[in-house]
């Protein structure tokens, strides 16, 4: 973190800590307290929404579980805060797991609906299980005691503040660690994550469970803060409000969460005060109109684009003078704001400000210096050099999609340390073979053994960790992450640190993290991308993206590397460079399978070449042999034409 950021954070926290000293009005103290509590929920929700890119409509339910854990423990057992805080976190995390294990097998709208169903079930259960929860009556409780002293409003405020800051630090550390990178990676490309040994399912569940833990902590504090809990608080509207706060504040940003929490807490208060609302809506209309004019003048947006927000805010301003009370229309206002944010403020307020002020992260040189000098050879030497000469043996592989046999009884033997070419016309089954080898497809019949172990039936991430890395025909990078981070995801397997290590920054985590960063930089250097290390992967030119995929695959320390058309879209000098890189990879003892249409690359590099056509192997042998094979010529050119 930059020093100026740290300074700002310290000033902010100090201001929050001193707030109750300056303002004695309990109403305002409670308001800020609520903002901080919501912020804790949002830190967690941002992990799911911002980083893994899933929509959760169940967080109000989880928040409720946290609150009711406290309520029940205090009401039935008179438990102290020392028990309720960990209990709320653990029990809510448990509920999160209960939801996540079945639900996270699906994504997108399905997941949204499932989490919504979960939230609804929680609300029904709280209402109905009155023997435990007192049902619709709710539970009253008092502020907790700490060291035998019953906290008053102000002291509890400080407790909330301390826990909020702790939550902030922990979330920040998690998201900066290999765990955070895994979360972001599975959003960028689930397939690639799996093939980098980062199990998509497992990390989605982790993200959800961690997120639930924070919701539980917040629910706990909320119960003490309100001193009364009832089932109807934790409803659908609250869940939508949380989501709105995350996107309005700004995804992938802790400041965004704080801003979002402030807005959703203050907005209803604002709407209660119709006078105030009129001023604000007029100011908003003026602001939008002015920025629209500026935008159009500068050619950044067209009149058509800006028409809807301008007319919308003007209407809102007009409406505020017409209506006597806004309270009843609160939800409609939230709905309109949601629509606005979804379409016009996708990066949230924080993202908008960042764009407007053109804030750029630290310079490349500084960041490289921060990572430190690369020591030794970044590319790992492949394990098992002295083991059996057959690294991979596939026999009788059949892959059937409906009536189509994409692979029909294919045998393939790959010798350790060789470069094995796999060629054939489009649609001949080369990429299908890759997908079978890496566990993306389960073959209909046949066996695949890698280093003596069967890979059939194992998950992609498991296979990847056992030593098969790959690149993709359609580049599958983690677009929003930097080149360096992409490679670091590949290095995920080098981490033994767990959540606790990350949260506490133990020496073990620090050591592993520093090592991974410098090795990632070394791998980028190996493929010649170290200057672009801090560029987002989606901004790299196509050819560089392909090289980045190779660097990322090498990070897995593979014994076998599958390259799916690495030269596609590369210029002639780039191809030369690629050939040199592939040679260097082989020198490290890594075995390669190369799918390629550039025949000169194949002929230049490969020790053995197998040719597929219509899912069947039609030829195999030395490159020159295969090139002269009549069947191969026929498959490529149709009919017997001499070359």
């Amino acid at each position, binding site marked *: 973190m930059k020093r100026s950021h740290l300074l700002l954070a310290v000033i902010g926290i100090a201001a929050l800590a001193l707030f109750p000293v300056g303002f004695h009005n309990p109403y305002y103290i409670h308001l800020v307290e609520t903002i901080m509590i919501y912020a804790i929920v949002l830190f967690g929700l941002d992990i799911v929404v911002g980083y893994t890119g899933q929509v959760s409509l169940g967080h109000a339910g989880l928040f409720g579980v946290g609150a009711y854990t406290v309520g029940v423990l205090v009401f039935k057992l008179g438990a102290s805060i020392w028990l309720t805080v960990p209990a709320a976190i653990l029990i809510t995390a448990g509920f999160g797991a209960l939801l996540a294990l079945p639900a996270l097998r699906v994504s997108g*709208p399905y997941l949204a609906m499932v989490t919504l*169903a*979960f939230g609804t*079930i929680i609300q029904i259960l709280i209402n*109905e299980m009155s023997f435990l929860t007192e049902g619709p009556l709710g539970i009253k409780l008092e502020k907790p005691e700490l060291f035998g002293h019953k906290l008053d409003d102000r002291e509890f405020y400080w407790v909330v503040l301390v826990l909020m800051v702790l939550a902030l630090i922990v979330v920040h550390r998690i998201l900066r660690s290999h765990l955070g990178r895994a979360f972001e990676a599975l959003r960028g490309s689930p397939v690639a994550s799996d093939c980098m040994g980062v199990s998509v399912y497992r990390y989605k569940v982790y993200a959800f469970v961690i997120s639930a833990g924070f919701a539980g902590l917040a629910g706990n504090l909320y119960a003490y803060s309100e001193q009364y809990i009832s089932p109807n608080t934790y409803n659908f509207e609250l869940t939508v409000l949380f989501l709105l706060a995350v996107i309005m504040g700004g995804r992938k940003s802790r400041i965004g969460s704080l801003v979002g929490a402030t807005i959703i807490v203050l907005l209803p208060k604002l709407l209660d005060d119709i006078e105030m609302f009129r001023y604000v809506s007029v100011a908003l209309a003026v602001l939008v109109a002015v920025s629209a004019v500026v935008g159009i003048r500068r050619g950044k947006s067209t009149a058509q684009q800006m028409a809807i927000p301008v007319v919308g805010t003007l209407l809102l301003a007009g409406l505020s003078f017409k209506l006597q009370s806004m309270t009843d229309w609160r939800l409609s206002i939230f709905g309109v704001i949601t629509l606005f944010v979804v*379409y016009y403020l996708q990066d949230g307020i924080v993202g908008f400000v960042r764009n407007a002020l053109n804030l750029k992260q630290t310079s490349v040189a500084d960041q490289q210096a921060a990572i430190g000098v690369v020591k030794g050879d970044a590319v790992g030497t492949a394990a098992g050099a002295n083991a059996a000469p057959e690294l991979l043996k596939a026999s009788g592989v059949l892959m059937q999609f409906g009536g189509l046999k994409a692979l029909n009884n294919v045998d393939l033997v790959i010798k350790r340390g060789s470069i094995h070419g796999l060629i054939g016309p489009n649609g001949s089954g080369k990429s299908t073979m890759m997908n079978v080898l890496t566990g*993306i497809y389960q073959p209909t019949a046949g066996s695949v053994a890698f280093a003596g172990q069967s890979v059939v039936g194992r998950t992609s991430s498991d296979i990847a960790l056992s030593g098969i890395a790959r690149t993709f025909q359609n580049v599958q990078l983690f677009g929003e992450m930097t080149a360096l981070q992409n490679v670091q995801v590949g290095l995920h397997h080098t981490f033994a640190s767990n959540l606790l290590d990350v949260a506490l920054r133990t020496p073990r985590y620090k050591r592993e993290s520093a090592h991974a960063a410098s090795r990632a930089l070394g791998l980028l250097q190996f493929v010649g991308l170290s200057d672009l290390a801090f560029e987002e992967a989606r901004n790299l030119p196509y050819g560089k993206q392909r090289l980045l995929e190779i660097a990322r695959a090498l990070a897995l320390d593979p014994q076998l590397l599958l390259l799916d058309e690495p030269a596609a879209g590369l210029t002639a000098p780039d191809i030369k460079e690629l050939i040199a890189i592939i040679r260097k990879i082989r020198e490290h003892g890594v075995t390669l399978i190369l799918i390629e249409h550039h025949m000169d690359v194949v002929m230049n590099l490969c020790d053995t070449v197998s040719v597929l056509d219509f899912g069947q192997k039609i030829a195999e042998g030395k490159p020159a042999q295969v090139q002269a094979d009549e069947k191969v010529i026929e498959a490529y050119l149709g009919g017997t034409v001499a070359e």
Partner: protein
Amino acid sequence: MSCVFPFQSPAKATMQILTQLVFSGIALGMIYAVIAFGYQLTFQTSDTLNFGQGDALMLGALVGLTLVGLGVNYWLMIPIVCVFGAFQGAVVERIGVRPAIKIKSEFGWIMSTIALGIIFKNVAENVWGRDDLKFPSPLPESPLHFLGANVLPMEILVVGGALLMMLAVEVFNRKSIYGKAVVATFNDRDAAKLMGINTGLVITFSYALSSMTAAFAGVLIAPLTLTGATMGAVLGLKAFAVAIIGGLTSGMGIVVGGIILGVAETTTGFYLSTGYKDVPGLVLLLIVLAVRPAGLFGKTAIKKV
């Protein structure tokens, strides 16, 4: 719902109650099927769903109630409500879904249809009030005796009406050139566009159809339940459960799924507690998604890398 007859053996009475529960379950299930059918319609053209489908149903019912209150005949009211529903669906598509499709944002359409649903609900609360209202039944409310159980004439109307509605839309989709456009749009939106199909219009139309069926379901179910601004939310969610159970692409599946859920619900409501009646559907949703994400009748798509 429970009516025990004094002069019958307990076993026979139990059987009767069960039959009755099954009948009301079927009626309820058909409503779920109709709403789920609406999900399928939009999913087929655009891979999107209206998360405010339940609110479309609620609006249909409330508009119907107002029309009946103004003295419009129930049967005459139905087509008017259908037109209203279609209009409402088109609005949802234009405001909520189209911009999201344009920027290819899944998060976008999920959030915006939820937001529109919330707005509709809030507007309904302000226009029709927060209390549940009674919808006058167009058919006699005295039950008919059928297989030894009591069946409300309205329940028969619900089943018949729902089936008829789905059949009509299905025939229209299959026989008309529009239907072919829908299939083409579903298979490949870009290719369909290049073939001169106005895919935007097809999607708008599918939303209009979808909300129309929901509004229709609203006026069908309203005389059996109470009508109010909050009636839609849970219905929409449970209909999604049905759509998932049946598969988002299977027409037969949703009818079966709807009946399973409807019966599960009426029996739970009777034997356990009415408070729990929403639970089986939601749990079923969780289980089906965990075991077979494509639904019981749907086909699993092959992922392409």
